[in-house]
């Protein structure tokens, strides 16, 4: 049944049904509505969880790490500066193979201070070992949480994940969402079965240090687990489709790419606008399509190359900037298409909450087809 609700509320409702035992989070705009809703659910005994009102994001993720190591399913949510404060714990949690699921209500990073949306925060953690999923709308946001727990807790994976949805654009927007019942979620997502846990009955040491004789192999194993997460995601996404009718087995999702000459590549809510823009351009006789990257880590390079086979031009919409280098998605798409002969252009767009309209998407396609790219789109030169 479709219900009309705020994106943050949809997240809180689905997290409740995923039955985390420990929630630790620190309030930060635009994540707050999620954690407020969860705190109220705990206060109402609607959810059987400990809610730790930590004094910082750094402690939020540290507490999740401890609780996860002790054998509980855990949850946190953050964004922007909060995620930046977690930087050290992020690398640590992945290295310690704890299957933590954390929602990122994507927001820009200061300076200058901005509470508005882009994807700089989670993109900046791309080397940390966390899986990264990007949702196009609030239905996908909710669904990806269930899938994330299933993938992360898979004993072939054992890694944490960010479920990313665009701050304000999705988090504070009301959309119709179909939420599965508790029984349906239980049928999809079994109880947490930790691979190992802190337990006096079977003592283990967690988080030991590694000398040069061992460190490389630890990092290799984490890297391998990330690649295995692709298969786990495909399985979990297919099972989801079988149970709920919405199939997420594709790491990347093409839209009107058949016979396309030019393909847009994007992540997150901008895909909704891009699909409408593609429809308009198609109606005007232009052969344009879209590729949505649903999973950014592990990076689906082969899947992207396969999906874009046959196009001549690619325009990547990057809601982030690796300062001094270019957009992170564009850089990786170029690497994925290396040697294909496809022209790939990158556009830094929609930073710090700047709106993107259908005509902006069309303008990007015009630029790409003229061979102009690797640039900031829509710069207000009058304020430079």
């Amino acid at each position, binding site marked *: 049944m479709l219900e009309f609700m705020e994106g943050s509320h949809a997240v809180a409702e689905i997290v409740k049904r995923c039955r985390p035992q*420990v929630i630790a989070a620190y309030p930060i705009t635009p994540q707050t509505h999620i954690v407020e809703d969860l705190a109220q659910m705990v206060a109402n005994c609607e959810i*059987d969880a400990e809610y730790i009102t*930590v004094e910082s994001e750094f402690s939020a993720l540290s507490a999740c790490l401890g609780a996860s190591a*002790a054998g509980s399913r*855990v949850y946190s949510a953050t964004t922007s500066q909060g995620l930046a404060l977690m930087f050290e714990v992020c690398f640590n949690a992945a290295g310690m193979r704890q299957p933590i699921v954390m929602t990122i209500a994507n927001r820009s990073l200061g300076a200058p201070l901005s509470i508005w949306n882009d994807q700089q925060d989670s993109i900046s953690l791309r080397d940390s070992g966390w899986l990264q999923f990007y949702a196009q709308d609030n239905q996908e946001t909710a669904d990806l949480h269930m899938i994330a727990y299933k993938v992360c807790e898979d004993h072939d994976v054992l890694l944490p994940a960010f479920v990313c949805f665009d701050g304000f654009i999705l988090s504070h927007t009301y959309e119709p969402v179909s939420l599965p019942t508790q029984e349906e979620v239980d049928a999809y997502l079994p109880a947490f079965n930790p691979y190992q846990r*802190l*337990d006096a009955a079977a003592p283990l*040491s967690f988080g*030991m240090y590694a000398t040069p004789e061992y460190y490389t192999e630890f990092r290799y194993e984490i890297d391998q687990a990330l690649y295995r997460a692709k298969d786990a995601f495909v399985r979990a996404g297919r099972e989801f489709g079988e149970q709920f009718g919405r199939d997420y087995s594709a790491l990347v999702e093409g839209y009107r790419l058949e016979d396309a000459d030019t393909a847009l590549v994007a992540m997150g809510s901008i895909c909704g606008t891009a699909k409408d823009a593609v429809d308009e351009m198609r109606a005007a006789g232009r052969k344009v399509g879209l590729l949505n990257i649903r999973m950014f880590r592990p990076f689906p390079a082969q899947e992207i190359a396969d999906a874009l086979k046959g196009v001549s031009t690619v325009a990547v919409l990057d809601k982030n900037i690796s300062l001094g280098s270019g957009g992170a998605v564009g850089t990786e798409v170029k690497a994925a298409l290396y040697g294909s002969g496809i022209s790939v252009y990158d556009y830094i767009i929609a930073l710090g909450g700047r709106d993107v309209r259908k005509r902006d998407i069309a303008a990007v396609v015009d630029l790409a087809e003229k061979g102009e790219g690797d640039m900031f789109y829509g710069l207000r030169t009058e304020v430079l």
Partner: protein
Amino acid sequence: MAEVEKGCELFSAGHRACGGCGPALAARLLLKATGENVIIAAATGCMEVFSTPYPETAWAVPWIHSLFENCAAVASGIEAALKRQGRTEKVVCIGGDGATLDIGVLCISGAFERGHDITYICYDNEAYMNTGIQRSGATPYGASTTTSPAGKCSRGNPRPKKDMPRILAAHGAPYVATASIAYPNDFVQKVERAINTPGPCYIQVHTPCCTGWGFESGETLNMAKLAIETGLWVNYEMVDGEVVKAKKVMRKPVEDYLEKQKRYRHLFKPARQDDEIAKIQAIADANAKRFGIDIKKKESSE
């Protein structure tokens, strides 16, 4: 994650601490007090490094190390998880003075304010020993370290020790104590009391470091004892914020303690610095006054 082999000690021999290491003794005593039904959350530092080089571990109880500054937050999560799972293990943090008094204060303050049922043990060897004897907030006045070196225009560390026990007592901690490895039974009893007191408890145990302080490795316990006997370290307990008990001593002059350690050598050579020694004596005198530790004639030690 390595399998733990059980020996007769829960903190087993064969670890890589220096001979005469004070913190290693504290770890052994700590586990004697806790027994097996405990989970240890450790901070980065000497103890973590010398006891857990993968794939070897000295800990025969569940043990976790995440980062330098977050063991109190990790312990918060463990405690919450155990509560939700209905488990009975005690949760004990262990960190050095740098992890505790400096970089970890945020996480500790949060955990204590929230009232988690954890015990935090700070092994205080009065500097960052793992990285090469740099000054911390627990380094005593006048001690020369590699970042507070004595020199032509420096007489060593310019600040007294931060009063962490009082800071945590001010958080409403029901039980706060100081201890010393020179008095092992006292330390063990304090740990037992702390882990059996509901809520966040704190023990700061004085653990001399022969390498960092510059004394012979066979002198560790003597050095710990001299710190007590000079009044530069006081063993006391605070219950609900009030000092209820402090170990009394027949005080010796502080130079009996200072002159035996290379970190204070600049106070005696090339020329004796009477004014500096007097300042350190004044710290001991203030301790004695605050805690009432001086034994009057015909009064026996508690």
